């Protein structure tokens, strides 16, 4: 367990990106500078309802400005209330949480879908800074939901799949399969945001022999290992402490 804290955050920007997806920038004086790739925060911008904070994996930690950038999809009462906070609103944050995921060897394959891709970008940036090559495979319902597509392109080859344009019947991991056949064997693949993509990667990992992790989600209460509510699999692993990324074979 690594140190974490509680911040009184300030909303700097909170705007709609697509139908039900929003982009939030929040100043978190203590949490943002301490955050590492793979980590997440718990946030609440409300009082009694809903009761629990919500887990969010920032797409960017701006350590100098102490700002976290978050994409979120409105799916229930917590994200709905979040979407109504204007600049200047206060948010309670807990973090940084979870086990950092800073790759040591390369190359890296990053596979993600929709809002779920957010934790992949900090990992890609850390990897490139360490000189580790990165290839990304991203899919989304619509083009605007290929979040930060430009930034991913800057960091390495990017394959994309947009359901609206490319049809629902292919997976972006089919490009990964072609790359694997072409000789690109990653030291590690990291999946986020899609069980279907994770399934396919698990198959490819077995076939081509590489390690794979996946970001997983379960309802969380504390986010810090106290409540034991986020256990997954047969080993009693806690997503909030041992994850949020865990070996693919443990979570599928």
């Amino acid at each position: 367990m690594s140190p974490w804290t509680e911040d009184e955050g300030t909303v700097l920007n909170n705007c709609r990106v697509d139908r039900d997806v929003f982009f939030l920038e929040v100043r978190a004086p203590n949490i943002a500078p301490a955050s590492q790739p793979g980590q997440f925060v718990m946030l609440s911008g409300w009082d009694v309802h809903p009761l629990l904070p919500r887990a969010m994996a920032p797409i960017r930690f701006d350590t100098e400005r102490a700002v976290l950038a978050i994409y979120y999809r409105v799916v229930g009462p917590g994200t709905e209330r979040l979407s109504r906070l204007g600049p200047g609103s206060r948010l309670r944050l807990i973090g940084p949480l979870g086990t950092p995921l800073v790759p040591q060897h390369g190359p890296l394959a990053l596979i993600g879908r929709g809002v779920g891709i957010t934790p992949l970008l900090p990992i890609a940036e850390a990897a490139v800074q360490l000189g580790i090559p990165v290839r990304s495979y991203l899919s989304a319902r619509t083009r605007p939901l290929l979040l930060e597509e430009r930034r991913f392109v800057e960091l390495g080859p990017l394959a994309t799949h947009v359901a609206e344009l490319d049809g629902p019947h292919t997976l972006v991991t089919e490009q990964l399969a072609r790359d694997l056949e072409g000789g690109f064997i990653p030291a590690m693949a990291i999946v986020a945001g899609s069980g279907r993509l994770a399934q396919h990667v698990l198959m490819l990992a077995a076939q081509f022999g590489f390690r794979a992790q996946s970001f997983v989600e379960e309802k969380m209460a504390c986010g810090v290992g106290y409540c034991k509510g986020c256990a997954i699999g047969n080993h009693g692993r806690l997503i909030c402490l041992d994850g949020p990324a865990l070996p693919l074979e443990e979570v599928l």
Partner: protein
Amino acid sequence: MANRLACHVAGLPLPNPVMPASGTFDYHPDVRTPVDVARLGALIPKSITLHPQPGNPPSRLAETPAGLINSIGIPSPGLAAFQDKFRSVYGGVPCPLVISVAGYSPDEYAQLTQACSRWPEVVAIELNLSCPNLKTHLMPAQDPILLRDAVQAARAATVKPLWAKLSPNVTTIAPMAAIAHDAGADAVVAINTIRAMAINIERQKAILGHFTGGLSGPAILPIGLSMVWDIAQHTSVPVIGCGGIRTVDDALMYLMAGASAVQVGTATFAHPAAMMDIINGLDRYLADQGIAQIADIIGIAKPA
């Protein structure tokens, strides 16, 4: 300055009356968190069991209006493993330490109580009496005989203060508090979670892996408060109030209803520093009201 917040629970001195509820908070000696454990009235880690057990299957949490249902069960390393790591984790704990134990028979309570009483850091043993009995499916906290037997067994195994944690799932709670007292408990803790359930209507099935669980959080505060009031009105056993406490006002309600101290559980999840806020708030309240010590407000609520 004298410590206005210093208090006693059945004769046991505590620096203040605010402590975590078992299963919702823990202490890691090397990890800095927003909770300064040295300022807590006491620390109570999650209940431990005699034998290792994994806890309940996922999903373990469901959110309800102002409430949280959990079906964690008690994932526990078992007594032996707990003993092995005790010194390294709790050896230097900077506040009074209470260990919560959960048994499946009177003998298990006795073994756990005896073992945990040996450490000098431990100032009291809390009996979590909410493990379903394997034969009757009732919890000791629900049945007079099971309750008496569990508390008596633990009593015989220690000279340290013994707290019996009661369940709200009883017809009337005051008689259960009296039974625990008669059986040797120095104090009772009220309340544990309330049996509850949530259903996912899309999937047409229970949300929790164990299908029912226990409700905690602000939703249950008025229920816990009435139970503490009943125990204070009808028995002489000191009571530690628990259930839905989130703010200093909530803590004051419990103290005024007759609680000697309070435990904070679910509120810690959204606001880890909640216990710090409550301790500061109590101190400010006493100062503002010119009240010399916390004991002066315990049980002062008039009927109406």
